[in-house]
């Protein structure tokens, strides 16, 4: 009793936490309804999830407008930072939740599975992701990361009728745990080097003690370990090895979610840690990000060249995209650069592209979720021209063809790199993009220039159609009128330190 009395808890900024609260509440509600109401309709799951996601988006937009004047701040004893960065990322994550949940509904009805657990996991993953993007404390960040990761492990392994799914889950889990340990060790050593686990605190501390002596060793190796963990999460080469296997094995909606929300959260965490906490050590980590970026773009695009499974191709392409975002991260290490904004723009656009792309893969992948080879895409233009066109738009967007959102994204990061004189990395990324384009062209060739191998009717469920349609529309609209998105991304800032 006396303990409680002597405690003066920190203020809780409830309004800023609305997205988290909405999602958490919906999770609990969903689980309760699903287990307690016997006649709970299957469609209720996706409705609740969508409602939660959309409500969170709305709450975030309201918050965004609020933050338009207030640059944001840290709350709850510096545990989290609510700023335009975190709100922007939150919106993107919620969009990913909404899209993936729609896909999941189609997926589940096709595989005749049920249960609200997967939707609940989407939402807990989103909670983890949102915590990650707004964490102002390495421990909080770690907890968010684990919440996200554990949800993802489970989702990846969730199709228990499909062995690949379980294999993916286990691989992801083992390697994820391995990488988490590195990350955690990094947190520990950075804690040792800077004396804090708070991100803004580390920034102050590193700025205060310009320690030319001694703790640098521990601090820097700590940063290194941190970056190993983060690089794993963003699937930067050579830490990308898990990505293709897990993306291929996981149920397609989950893959879409991992590639979108998972990436957003990981990159957001990376950006916040590197630029806010370790901004003063940019000279140390920028070369590493530089190398990671170049390695990642090349590994991603090169390895995709000989693949024959479209889902796997897209996972390699996601690695390549991660490399591009790393280009932006590298630029963000420069004080004057706007790598932060361009990386976030890239992530937002990539989320749209990846949802649409995997929606199409889902549409074609058949009941057992395995018809995803190039052969299955042959002659799609003859079978379903609209679907082929939509996929082509999304693929060309990923390749960075103008008038699509993908170009805006690529242009943005290259611009931010060039503006801070990182020419080599910009050129390397562009060259890798050319190699990567081969991958997209191969899929396009299959769809448009080859004869169909099967004449089965392709049934595209309504939710999938919605996702594809919205994603293609967004791709083109952003590609032609990127102004709104760019202006919003220009405002993305961290809370004042």
């Amino acid at each position, binding site marked *: 009793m006396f303990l409680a009395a002597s405690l003066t808890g920190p203020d809780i900024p409830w309004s800023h936490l609305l997205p988290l609260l909405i999602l958490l509440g919906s999770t609990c509600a969903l689980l309760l309804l699903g287990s307690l109401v016997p006649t709970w309709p299957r469609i209720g799951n996706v409705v609740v999830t969508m409602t939660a996601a959309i409500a969170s988006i709305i709450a975030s937009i309201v918050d965004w407008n609020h933050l338009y004047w207030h640059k944001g701040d840290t709350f709850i004893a510096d545990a989290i930072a609510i700023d335009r960065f975190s709100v922007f990322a939150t919106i993107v994550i919620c969009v990913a939740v909404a899209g993936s949940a729609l896909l999941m509904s189609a997926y589940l009805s096709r595989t005749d599975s049920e249960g609200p657990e997967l939707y609940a996991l989407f939402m807990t993953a989103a909670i983890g992701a949102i915590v990650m993007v707004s964490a102002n404390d390495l*421990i909080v960040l770690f*907890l968010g990361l684990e919440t996200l990761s554990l949800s993802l*492990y489970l989702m990846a*392994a969730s199709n228990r009728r499909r*062995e690949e799914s379980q*294999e993916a*889950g286990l691989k992801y889990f083992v390697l994820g745990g391995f990488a988490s340990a590195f990350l955690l*060790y990094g947190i520990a050593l950075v804690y*040792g080097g800077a004396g804090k*686990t708070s991100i803004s605190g580390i920034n102050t501390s590193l700025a205060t003690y310009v320690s030319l002596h001694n703790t640098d060793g521990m601090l820097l190796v700590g940063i290194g370990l941190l970056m190993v963990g983060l690089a794993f999460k963003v699937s930067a080469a050579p830490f990308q090895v898990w990505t293709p296997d897990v993306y291929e094995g996981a149920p397609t909606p989950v893959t879409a979610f991992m590639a979108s929300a998972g990436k957003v959260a990981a990159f957001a965490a990376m950006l916040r840690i590197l630029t806010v906490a370790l901004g003063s050590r940019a000279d140390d980590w920028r070369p590493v990000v530089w190398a990671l970026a170049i390695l990642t773009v090349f590994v991603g695009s090169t390895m995709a060249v000989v693949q024959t499974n479209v889902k796997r191709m897209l996972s390699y392409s996601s690695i390549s995209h991660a490399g591009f975002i790393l280009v932006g991260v590298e630029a963000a290490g420069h004080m004057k650069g706007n790598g932060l904004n361009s990386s976030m723009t890239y992530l937002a656009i990539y989320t749209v592209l990846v949802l649409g792309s995997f929606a199409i893969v889902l549409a074609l992948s058949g009941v057992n979720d395995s018809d995803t080879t190039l052969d299955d895409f042959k002659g799609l233009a003859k079978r379903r021209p609209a679907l082929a066109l939509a996929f082509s738009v999304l693929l060309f967007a990923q390749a960075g063809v103008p008038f699509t959102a993908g170009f805006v994204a690529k242009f943005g990061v290259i611009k931010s790199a060039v503006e801070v004189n990182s020419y080599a990395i910009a050129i390397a990324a562009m060259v890798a993009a050319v190699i990567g384009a081969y991958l997209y062209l191969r899929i396009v060739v299959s769809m448009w220039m080859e004869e169909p191998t099967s004449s089965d009717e392709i049934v595209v469920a309504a939710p999938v159609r919605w996702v594809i349609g919205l994603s293609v529309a967004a791709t083109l609209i952003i590609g032609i009128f990127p102004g709104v998105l760019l202006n919003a991304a220009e405002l993305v800032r961290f809370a004042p330190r």
Partner: protein
Amino acid sequence: MLSAIQPTSTWYLVIAAVLFGIGTLGVMVRRNPLVMFMCIELMLNAVNLTFVTLSKSMADINGQVAVFFVMVVAAAEVVVGLGIIVSIMRRRTGATADDLSALKG
């Protein structure tokens, strides 16, 4: 004479580093997923030890708080991990990590 030597924080940190290394090694050399998972626990323990040592040497309670949370995470991870492993092992009894390699290339 020996008692004159006081183990400093560094000693503990070194032990933790070695423990972490052994854990890392274990993940790579063991084939049984359960044992691999135990090795990850070793790594987490190394981190815990580091946190506590640093907490002590800096006289800062936050290190211990971190350990508390790590333990929670470890517990949750174990639950989830064992859940996945059980669901796999129920279908393929005695499968090792090496047997799960259908996804590759």
